[in-house]
């Protein structure tokens, strides 16, 4: 911000951004909804990074989570159901200068958009993907989602969900080019902040599954976890998500896990399905995976003269 240079001139940054500069319309999520916490965290991360609001684009699909762009004062693209990822990849494809975020949910990403999820992991374009996983369809009013626990009573399964819940982390980890896979809960603000900050700083597609409260439809699922943290397993490591001592104390179960260890990450992720132990922290990170956005963005600096010359050369081949 302010500083005195060696030549004694005052160095004043032309624009300084406060939280207000990132806050869009007033959020209209239900009270007690975990989305509010994610939104506030995103505002803070952009403010801390002092990114000009016009340089960030929040892209979303359809669902409660996908309203997020409206509550940001950045650019936003509120798309259609399931297609947030290909829309976001398109934004990034020829605009490597833009800071791209994706807000999607368990229905939007893991169900109707599942094909794009797999390929977005492969593309590994530089963007931050937030999956708001409340384990239920909220906006359409309480239908079973892919991550709904078995036997959960919903409007589409009044006798209880008939299938075991999908494990999104084992899927993401299993896709070639996975480069950043983390999981966090919405009700631990310091951990949420550190996790999203690390995801935002990572070059590549960072997939963060945020286990999140929906007090209106499935309060019971997260309430249990909030009241008894023993089902959560905190992942600690010097290369993982930084955890303050006070925060660490909240987790009775914590384990040191090196985020470069894929086999360990898969084992820990599988425990969620097999033992009901939910990992929190950085499961996997690899900073050496190529970003497709580096490839798709090639040639953005091409001049008009070069374009015309290349097209003329192409025409020459067919000249008679």
């Amino acid at each position: 911000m302010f500083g005195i240079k060696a030549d004694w001139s005052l160095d004043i940054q032309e624009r300084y951004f406060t939280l207000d500069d990132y806050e869009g319309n007033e959020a209209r999520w239900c009270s007690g909804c975990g989305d509010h916490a994610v939104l506030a965290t995103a505002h803070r991360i952009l403010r801390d990074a002092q990114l000009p609001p016009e340089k960030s684009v929040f892209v979303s699909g359809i669902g409660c989570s996908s309203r997020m762009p409206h509550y940001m004062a950045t650019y936003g693209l509120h798309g259609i159901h399931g297609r947030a990822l290909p829309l976001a990849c398109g934004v990034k494809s020829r605009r490597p200068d833009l800071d791209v975020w994706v807000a999607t949910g368990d229905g939007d990403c893991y169900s109707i958009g599942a094909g794009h999820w797999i390929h977005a992991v492969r593309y590994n374009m530089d963007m931050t993907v937030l999956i708001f996983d409340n384990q239920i369809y909220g906006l359409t009013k309480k239908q079973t989602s892919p991550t709904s626990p078995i036997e959960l009573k919903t409007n589409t399964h009044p006798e209880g969900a008939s299938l075991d819940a999908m494990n999104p982390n084992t899927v993401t980890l299993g896709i070639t080019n996975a480069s950043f896979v983390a999981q966090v809960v919405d009700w631990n603000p310091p951990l949420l902040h550190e996790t999203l900050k690390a995801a935002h700083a990572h070059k590549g597609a960072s997939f963060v599954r945020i286990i999140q409260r929906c007090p209106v439809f499935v309060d019971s699922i997260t309430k249990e976890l909030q009241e008894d943290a023993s089902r959560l397993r905190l992942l600690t490591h010097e290369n993982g998500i930084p955890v303050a001592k006070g925060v660490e104390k909240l987790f009775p179960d914590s384990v040191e896990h090196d985020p470069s260890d894929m086999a360990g990450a898969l084992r820990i992720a599988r425990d969620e399905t097999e033992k009901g132990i939910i990992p929190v922290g950085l499961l996997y990170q690899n900073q050496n995976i190529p970003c497709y956005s580096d490839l798709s963005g090639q040639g953005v600096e091409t001049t008009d003269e070069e374009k015309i010359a290349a097209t003329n050369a192409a025409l020459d081949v067919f000249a008679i």
Partner: protein
Amino acid sequence: MQPQTKQEHIVEIVSDSGEGAQKCGQTFGTISAKMGNGVWTVEIIPAEIQPPARTPSGASGIRIRLGSKEITNVGNEGDLVVAFNEQVLYSRIANGAYKEGTVVLLDNRWESDRSTEIQQMYKKAVAEFRDHGLVVHELPIHEACLKVVKDPRKGKNMFVLGMLCRIYNRDKEMGRNEIALTFAGKAEKIITSNQKLFDAGYQFAAEQLGEYFFEIPTREDRSDSPMVVTNGNTAVGLGVMASGMELVSMYPITPATSASHYLADVFPAAGGFVHQAEDEIAAIAFAIGASYAGKTACTITSGPGMALKTENIALAVMAEVPLVIVNVQRGGPSTGLPTKIEQGDLLSALYGEPGDAPKIILAAATIAECCSMVVLARKLAESFRTPVIVLTDANLATGVQPWERPELSRDMLAPPLDQSEWNSDIPAYDWDEKTGLSQRPIPGMPNGEYVLTGLSHTKQSKVSYESAENQYSATMRSRKLATLQSTLTPPNIHGDESGDMLVVGWGSTFGAIEEAVDNLRTTGEKISSIHLRFLSPLEPGLTEIFSQFKKVITIEVNYSDDINAPMITTENRRYAQLAMVLRVQTLADVDCWSAVYGHPLQPEMIGNVLQERLNQLNKKTGE
């Protein structure tokens, strides 16, 4: 001996898949174009990559129509055919490709095949072809190739090219050079071997087929402007480059994919990128993302891909995202006829989305327009802040024709990315009430921040459930089409401005319709035609033009009910697609004739239909 002068000839080469008939024909077409003939070629493509050999359904090949004036369509029946086996000719005969007197140059290797079954099939077929009126010459083509190469399956096509170059008195050196160009980058050995086959074929035709020696005079109407020879899909690719677009996002689909193949090769030199997406939906979503971010992009597909893209097209309409969508139409519905032509997607392009989704729709009528319309489409998309659909079809996609080389200029290109400060007093959709037009903020512009949404929204792009807001924004989006129409001029009338009958066409039928109309006019019929390039909005002045004719009829390659068929009445008759649109828009009693044979309409076929309707009309009016 002097060659016999012909004003035009239609040549076919038919073989099993993989024998190189198309390469032979394309090279022959290019040589002919370079020598100053009018040329149109169309490929005959089976749906499978390796269909069973020696079967009618596996017929793979090419038709080349060459003449002493501009050639705009495939023409009627063939004059001369080279066939690598007899079975593939059956499907061409069934398609009405030949007439009494068509000369067939047939490889006779099957007569002495090891299999007696094949020997018998061959003899039976030759007898049947002769009964059908074809002039069959059984020639030792395979045997002659064996004298030059060990495996004539590779290279027989260049032997045939040599034969054709002798028969049509082509410049032999030009032929040899063209082979060098065709195989450029391959080993010298391969080029020499193919040139030897070419020479052998040339000599073979001179010795064995001396009576077939033709001269097609050079085009007199040839312009002095530089020309290029390409098919329609390559022209689409060239249009993408000439328009300054930076991104094509696609998913493989016949018959559109070769446009993207071509671009994958040449686009990077112009700074562009071809993205092969995981599916059709992602392909358009990716393009919308790029366009939203200020880089107007293109997606290239065919009918089934369009069906998958509808929800995203609606998003682009609703949120006013510039976008170019090329639909290389094929036979439908469902998987339909993937390699064959149809003009079946006009109504789905117009009305495929839920709700009201006004958009611009253009149709290319020629191969040159496959290029120029993409350039136009990018400009319109940007100026009118809307998706633009360019309809081409399988006939244009694979048809090859010489066309005037476009003179490239800066104003064809997309303007540089604007990142200047946005005036924060101007909302994201600052609709001009009269025209519906507005400027768009681009991400990166300070003070332009807005959230693009597919939900009903206000000027400020705020989600709105207010009924008045929804009515207003729908009006603004629709008004843009009326605004565009006000800038257009009425279509050119081919023929007189009044008369008995007006034929209306769109797309690749252009050349065939005009040829049919010209033929009828020389017999004294009072018939004219117009060909529409703008289908949404329609070109202006149609009501006035129609009123000058006793009857208006569309000729289209899509399905419609025949009014004389059982059960069909004027109340339940399903009209051809353009006819339906014209009837609604002009309230004129527009008739139609259309068919879905999967092949391009021949001028003679159109001529016969129109003659019949003219006779009915004259009987009715008592003339």
